């Protein structure tokens, strides 16, 4: 015992068996290795599961429902200072502001209603505030119409500073047009309705006076070339509105259109490009069934109107230009919020969403693009007076008539995604009709993201379809010949030769497709189509002449060498196709096939089109399909074929009736795996298509696939944004597709292997 411990490595077998400690160590080692290997093996399953669940984890927030919860409610601060006409809050949801009908701005803490600061707006003595309006919720601009025909413009603003590394927000009131009220009506009539918009170059006011006149006043900035002096050019216009009563007025931020409406539903759209002479562009009634308009606001971006009515329905209306360049006002969609009148609408500041409240205190948060109701809750017990969504749309304040302010937290991260917005046709703002569109981002904040995966899926399937169209005949025919007819001495070189094709980096195939093949195909389009017909025909003709050759000649070529003999034949006919291509062009298509197609059928031609992708990606898929199918055909048991041949079947009959039938599951799985490859291929489609996400069935148009889209947009996508998650969703779709296809193929193959082993 003692001497085995001293030299355990050099022990003899006999000594080993008698050494307890060393034996135990060996057995322990054996067990440890076994366990490590098992863990290692199972980690493969873990890897695939981690990929799947991670993708799902990122996508999951898109699927969960939004919700809102009450945080606090308190009495409105300084109730003695008048009733609230407008509520607002700043970016960080710390400070809210309440504007009152007596001209006070009361800043308070959103959390508990504590008053932070009270500002008196400089309303001249003896005057009343006769109207009140906001100039776009995202700008914080507020207009006060006064009883002598003047108006005051104020803006609530917040400065953020970090004294002692703690955030401090200081609210203030600013006067973009000065503290002196601006004279809107020279007749000094009280302003009963007001709307305004401030811009970089223009400021516009639309005012209704007590004697029912409608005034459009525009101040245009005139900057002197030499110094920083700013002077204003004023343009006045009196609107000729015969209908008289106007209850809602809006001006868009581009200063192109003004929208006027009254309670009974008459909507008038004015073209105010010429500020001195506004023109009525559209006039229509937007209400039905006797409903009355109860509120009207712009959606973020000022392109569409949100109109709430007394029946609790909220409609989105916008000016649409159709294919004949004809403009009309159209209802894009509507939401049934409740049965009570919708009294306040508050658009989100950065998305196409909105908060709406009805007379009973039911609030709803909607997204127009997704046509989705994110949240519906009942707040308070009496009629709402004012409501506001925070700039990040993650909190809301609502004041009810009993003087309570309700503070709610809103969790609504990805409202723009719904099943319909991802896969269905969506009627986007300013589009003539509902459409499938992918256009994920633009420079401006009020861009409506168009995230329909349908055009990308369509592009993926289209590219794969043409790739398979090229690959399947070449790969399967090749596999049949190589696996069944080819002489072994040739096969041992041909098979790896074709398989090496599969090792070529797709970036090189993509590069050649984009920079060499695409221009080549463009010039030799007719030649390509001639090639498709001429080469099979040429092979047949050659075969016919071959069998009529004297036997002595034919015997020079051993059986199973056909493919080598055919190489020069294929080369000759390929060359011939490109030589006669131009003649066919001149003869049939008046010189150029592309021009002919455009003139005859209106078919456009993109240089980087589906034909090029089909050829290049087909090339990439061939080796994989070929290799698996050839394996399946080659491993068909020999006694089956010899039996068939012995019974008098020709080699071709044996192939068609015995070999292919037996190997068909293998061939099926080859095609499936090839399809999986084509669907997920990235570099070729990225480089050989124009990457335009169009849904066009034509083979001469470009496309964009799911995979290329990820490659293009992922690096620019902001982490955890909706766009980021949608790209992950695209990846998940690809993963699922290839998972199903590959699993199916592998199951089929495993069964086939068992069948062969039993044969």
């Amino acid at each position, binding site marked *: 015992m003692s001497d085995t411990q001293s030299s355990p490595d050099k022990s003899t077998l006999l000594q080993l068996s008698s050494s307890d400690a060393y034996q135990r160590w060996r057995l322990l080692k054996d067990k440890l290795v076994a366990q490590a290997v098992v863990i290692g093996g199972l980690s*493969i399953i873990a890897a695939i599961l981690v990929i799947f669940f991670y993708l799902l984890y990122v996508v999951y927030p898109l699927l969960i429902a939004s919700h809102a919860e009450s945080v606090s409610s308190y009495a409105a601060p300084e109730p003695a200072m008048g009733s609230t006409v407008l509520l607002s809050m700043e970016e960080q949801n710390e400070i809210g502001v309440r504007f009152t009908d007596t001209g006070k701005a009361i800043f308070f803490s959103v959390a508990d209603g504590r008053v932070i600061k009270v500002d008196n707006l400089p309303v001249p003595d003896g005057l009343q505030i006769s109207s009140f309006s906001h100039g776009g919720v995202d700008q914080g601009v507020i207009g006060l119409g006064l009883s002598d025909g003047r108006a005051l413009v104020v803006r609530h603003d917040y400065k953020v500073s970090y004294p002692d590394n703690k955030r401090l927000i200081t609210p203030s009131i600013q006067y973009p047009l000065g503290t002196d009220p601006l004279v809107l009506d020279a007749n000094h009539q009280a302003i009963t309705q007001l709307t305004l918009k401030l811009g970089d170059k223009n400021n516009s006011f639309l005012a209704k006076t007590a004697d029912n006149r409608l005034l459009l006043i525009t101040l245009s900035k005139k900057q002197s070339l030499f110094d920083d002096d700013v002077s204003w050019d004023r343009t006045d216009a009196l609107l000729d509105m015969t209908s008289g009563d106007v209850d809602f007025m809006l001006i868009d931020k581009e200063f192109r259109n003004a929208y006027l409406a009254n309670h009974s539903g008459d909507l008038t759209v004015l073209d105010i490009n010429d500020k001195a002479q506004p023109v009525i562009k559209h006039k229509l009634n937007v209400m039905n069934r006797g409903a009355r308009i109860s509120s009207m606001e712009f959606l973020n971006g000022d392109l569409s109107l949100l109109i709430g009515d007394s029946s609790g329905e909220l409609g989105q209306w916008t000016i649409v230009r159709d294919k004949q360049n004809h403009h009309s006002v159209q209802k894009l969609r509507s939401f049934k919020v409740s049965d009570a009148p919708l009294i306040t609408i508050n658009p989100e500041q950065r998305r196409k969403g909105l908060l709406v409240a009805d007379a009973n205190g039911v609030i709803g948060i909607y997204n127009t693009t997704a046509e989705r109701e994110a949240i519906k809750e009942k707040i308070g017990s009496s009629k709402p007076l004012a409501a506001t969504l925070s700039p990040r749309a993650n909190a809301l304040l609502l004041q009810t008539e009993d003087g309570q302010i309700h503070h709610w937290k809103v969790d609504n991260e990805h409202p723009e995604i719904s099943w319909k917005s991802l896969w269905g046709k969506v009627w986007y703002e300013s589009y003539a009709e509902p459409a499938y569109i992918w256009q994920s981002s633009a420079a401006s904040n009020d861009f409506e993201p168009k995230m329909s995966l349908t055009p990308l899926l369509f592009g993926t399937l289209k590219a794969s379809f043409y790739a398979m169209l090229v690959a399947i005949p070449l790969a399967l025919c090749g596999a049949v010949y190589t696996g069944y007819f080819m002489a072994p001495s040739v096969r041992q070189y041909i098979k790896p030769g074709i398989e090496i094709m599969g090792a070529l980096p797709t*970036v090189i195939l993509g590069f050649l497709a984009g920079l060499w093949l695409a221009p080549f195909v463009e010039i030799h389009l007719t030649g390509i189509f001639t090639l498709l017909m001429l080469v099979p025909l040429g092979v047949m003709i050659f075969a016919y002449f071959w069998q009529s050759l004297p036997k002595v000649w034919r015997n020079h070529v051993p059986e199973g060498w056909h493919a080598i003999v055919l190489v020069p034949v294929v080369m000759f006919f390929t060359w011939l196709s490109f030589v006669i291509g131009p003649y066919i062009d001149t003869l049939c298509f008046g010189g150029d096939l592309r021009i002919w197609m455009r003139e005859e059928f209106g078919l456009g031609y993109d240089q980087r089109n589906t034909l090029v992708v089909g050829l290049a990606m087909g090339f990439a898929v061939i080796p994989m399909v070929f290799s698996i199918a050839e394996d399946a055909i080659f491993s068909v048991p020999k006694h089956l074929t010899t039996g068939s041949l012995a019974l008098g079947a020709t080699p071709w009959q044996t192939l068609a009736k015995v070999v292919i039938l037996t190997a068909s599951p293998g061939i099926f799985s080859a095609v499936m795996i090839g399809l999986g490859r084509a669907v997920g291929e990235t570099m070729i489609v990225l480089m050989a298509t124009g990457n335009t996400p169009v849904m066009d069935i034509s083979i001469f148009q470009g496309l964009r696939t799911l995979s290329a889209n990820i490659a293009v947009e*992922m690096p620019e996508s902001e982490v955890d944004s909706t766009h980021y998650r949608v790209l992950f969703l695209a990846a998940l779709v690809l993963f699922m597709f290839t998972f199903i296809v*590959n699993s199916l193929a592998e199951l089929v193959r495993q069964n086939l292997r068992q069948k062969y082993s039993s044969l």
Partner: protein
Amino acid sequence: MIKAWFKSGSPWIWLTAGAVSINLLLVVGLLFLIAARGLGHFWPADIVEYHYQDKSGQASVIIGEEVDQSLLHEAQAIAAGHEVLNNAEYLLRLLVKTGNRDILGTDFRWIQDQYIQSRSTPDDLVVIERREWGNFYGRLLTVKQDGAVIAEGEQAWQTAQEKLATDLELFDEIEQLQDKQLGAINYNLEHLRLKQRALELKNQWNDSKRQEFAAQKLAYEQDYKVIQEKLAQLNKQIKCCSIVVAEAGGKQITIPLNRVVKMIRPNEMGLLDKSIEYIVNFGQFISEDPREANTEGGIFPAIFGTVMMVMLMAVIVTPLGVIAAVYLREYAKQGFVTRIIRIAVNNLAGVPSIVYGVFGLGFFVYILGGSIDRLFYPEAAPAPVFGTPGLMWASLTLALLTLPVVIVATEEGLSRIPKSIREGSLALGATKAETLWRTVLPMASPAIMTGLILAVARAAGEVAPLMLVGVVKLAPTLPLDGNFPYLHLDRKFMHLGFHIYDVGFQSPNVEAARPLVYATSLLLVMVIVGLNMFAIAIRNNLREKYRALEN
């Protein structure tokens, strides 16, 4: 007769044979295409002087090298708005690389053969490779030093070459000082700042540390000053000489010699000279840094990055793949679990590579990398260290992607080892682990090698996932350098495949860069096809060996 022939099935057999021929031709044709275009890039082609008179009758002289031809059929040519003289059936157009981008605006020009009055290849035409604006084609007139002409006429060429040689030496010296020494100082200063920040975060920043750090900083700054003075002097020296050249139209321009990389006169070179030049060019191509937004110069950083990434990946993927294969072959009971694992392996192989990229970006970079940053590099915040795409994450992602390749190849190797060998070992009293370690794995090592080579070949050509997890078009520093810790796993790197994509599709001057892309492609294809052939050769060799063992 024909009917009987069809009935015999023989035409169909011929058709399937035709498919094989087409496949073969496709492979060979593709390789030939890449080779033909890629190899031509390094050849110093003759410079031709064309006397040209186009449709408008304007006579001009064009100097350049012919790079491409295109035959346009008469009808197509007329449709494209060209006139075709002499009732020719085809319009022959030549693509001429005229260089002189600073004067002409483009590097290339299509000219029509029918308008060429005469062409010649005079010996005195020079090609000047410049650091910016691409090549210059024309004639050398004089050499100037500090503004005074020191050589002209026949001597100019000799003098210019001599001056250029000294300038290139100076240039290397400046490069060395700037990149290596100043780079190292900057790196150390940054390191010092991070150390200080780390101490501050731990509340260990005190006066003694402050003094120590200030002293170090001062030392670095003094070094910096010395190097900068040296640099200023060298920069003055290098700017002394310039050459005056005349372009095709006779316009004279002055090129400072420090902006010149190389001057040759290809027309006076013999075949031997050109062959030597060819080899030199190829050497420079694989050993130099890229210039002008990657469209000129070499591809060394891309080769280096690819090799680094692939090596790291190999280190990760080999143990994992081998263990999984050993489990499947040696340990697992063949049944439900192995079936599931095989499906998982197949799925790993079939999942689109871009999905790996997305996964790598989200999981490795943001989750793993973000956690590492929070735990170990709080001082660097808000700048990410590992929480941004980089070499390590790229290697890890590709390791996952190539795992199935290693598993499949290893499994196949294991399955070919005769049972008798294992049984013999076990019968002698070895445990299963010992049998595995001492007999099975050594015998399977060529198969593992095969798997590894195939994995490397696959990884070297993969681009899509790398675009998301760490590859950039131009990395300022290599992932391996002389600054501690030498191997910088967090750095971004360049990659051959991405280089092809980037230069071919994203560069401002695709036409000029095209030969370079072909050359890069050729290099990549050669490496990958070579690796694959090597792997196949090992595998075949192995099969033979085991067949001998079985008998």
